[in-house]
C-alpha cells in the first residue's frame, strides 16, 4: 500500500521555523514505522534527520511522536497506525525538549535529570566475597523498572514536563525507584530528598501518559506511587 507520511521538519540552518512535509511511501502492514523514515531518508530525501540504532526496541534511540502519541518508531508497526491505502501517518519530535533538527531533540536536560537522582547503587558496607544475596521476591520489586531503556518517551509525554521543564519526570524518578527499592541499596536517605521536592514526585498527577507511551510497558505510575509512599513514611 501507499501511505502519506507527514514529517515535522526543522532545519536550523535555514533560519525558518518548523514545518510539515509530506511524502508518499510504499509500505507493508508488518513494516515498522522506522522503516518508513528509512525509506524517506534513503530514497526520497537524504536530509531527513532522526536517531536510530538497534531497530528492535532496546537501544531507545528513536522515540518520537507518531500520530500524536510518543512511541518508539522501530517498535510500532504500520498496521497498528493506519487502516489502509492512502492513510496518513505523522511523525514529530518528542514534545517538551528543544529540537536540534527534524526529529532529533536535545536530550541534555533529560539526562541532567537522570544524573540528578543519583542513579547508582549506594552501599558503603564492604561487599561479601560472593554476590550479595537477593531473593526472587526482592528482585521482582524492581524488575519491571530495570526494563527502562531511557528512550524519553515517558518524560516527554507528561503534561507536567510540558508545563514545567524542571520537573524531573517519570524516567529519572523511575531510576530513583529502581535503586531505592533495590534490596542491596542503602542510599534512600540521600536519594529521597531529591525526588521529594518541588521538582519531583509531587508533580506526578497519575495521568498515565507515561505508562501509555512506554515501549517496554512499564507501569511507571505504580512505581512512582510506591516511591511517594516511601517519601511520606520517610518523613514521619
Amino acid at each position, binding site marked *: 500500500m501507499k501511505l502519506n507520511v507527514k514529517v515535522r521538519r526543522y532545519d536550523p540552518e535555514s533560519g525558518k521555523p518548523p514545518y510539515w512535509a509530506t511524502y508518499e511511501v510504499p509500505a507493508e502492514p508488518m513494516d515498522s514505522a522506522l522503516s518508513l523514515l528509512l525509506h524517506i531518508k534513503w530514497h526520497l530525501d537524504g536530509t531527513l534527520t532522526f536517531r536510530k540504532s538497534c531497530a528492535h526496541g532496546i537501544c531507545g534511540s528513536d522515540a518520537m511522536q507518531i500520530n500524536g502519541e510518543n512511541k518508539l518508531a522501530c517498535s510500532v508497526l504500520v498496521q497498528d497506525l493506519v487502516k489502509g491505502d492512502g492513510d496518513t501517518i505523522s511523525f514529530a519530535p518528542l514534545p517538551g525538549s528543544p529540537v536540534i533538527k527534524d526529529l532529533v531533540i536535545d536530550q541534555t536536560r533529560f539526562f*541532567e*535529570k537522570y*544524573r*540528578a*537522582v543519583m542513579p547508582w547503587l549506594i552501599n558503603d558496607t564492604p561487599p561479601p566475597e560472593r554476590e550479595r544475596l537477593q531473593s526472587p521476591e526482592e528482585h521482582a520489586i524492581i524488575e519491571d523498572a530495570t526494563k527502562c531503556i531511557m528512550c524519553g518517551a515517558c518524560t516527554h509525554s507528561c503534561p*507536567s514536563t510540558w*508545563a*514545567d*521543564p*524542571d520537573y*524531573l519526570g517519570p524516567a529519572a524518578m523511575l531510576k530513583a525507584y529502581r535503586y531505592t527499592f533495590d534490596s542491596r541499596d542503602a542510599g534512600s536517605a540521600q536519594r529521597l*530528598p*531529591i*525526588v*521529594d*521536592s*518541588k*521538582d*519531583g*514526585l*509531587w*508533580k506526578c*498527577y497519575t495521568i498515565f501518559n507515561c505508562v501509555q507511551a512506554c515501549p517496554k510497558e512499564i507501569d511507571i505510575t505504580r512505581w512512582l506511587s510506591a516511591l*511517594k509512599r516511601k*517519601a*511520606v513514611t*520517610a*518523613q*514521619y
Partner: protein
Amino acid sequence: MRTYGTNRSNALNWFLHRITGTFLIFLLITHFWVQHYDAQTATVVAQTLSSEQIEQGVLPEYSSEARAAVKAKFGPDATVTPYDVVMLRLADPVYAVLWKGFNILFLIFALHHGFYGLNNILSDYIRNDMGRLVARVLSWSLALVLLVVGLYAVITAGWTY
C-alpha cells in the same frame, strides 16, 4: 547544569491533600444531604423563582416537616424563612456545637484542599520562581481571608437569635 530537587520536602502537603480529599467526600455527602435532601433542614429546595419574584422578596416554600419543626422550636407565630430553617439547627446549643464543629472542619479541609490544588496548577504553569512566589502568597492570603470570614460567620451564626 541546573541543580534539581534542593528545596524542602513537600510530602506532608501531598499526603494531607489526599487525606482531606477523602474526608471531604464524606463531609460533602452530609452537607449536601442536610442542605438539599433532608426535608426538615434543606434551605435550598427544588423550586425555581423568577427574577420578579426574587425582587418582590418571595421566598422558597418549605416542606410541611420543615414548617412544623420551625414552629415547634420557635413558637406557632414564627415565620418560616431560610434563615429560620438554618437557625433551627444552630439555636440548640448542643446541636449547634456539633454543627459548628462540622462546618469549621469542613471549611478548613475545603480551603486546604482547594488552595493546595490551585497552587499545584499555578506552580505548574508559572515557570519563574518570583512569579510562583507571588502567586503562592496571593492565593494563600485569599484562603486566609476566606478562613477568617468563614470562621466568623459559622461561629457567630445564631448568637443573636
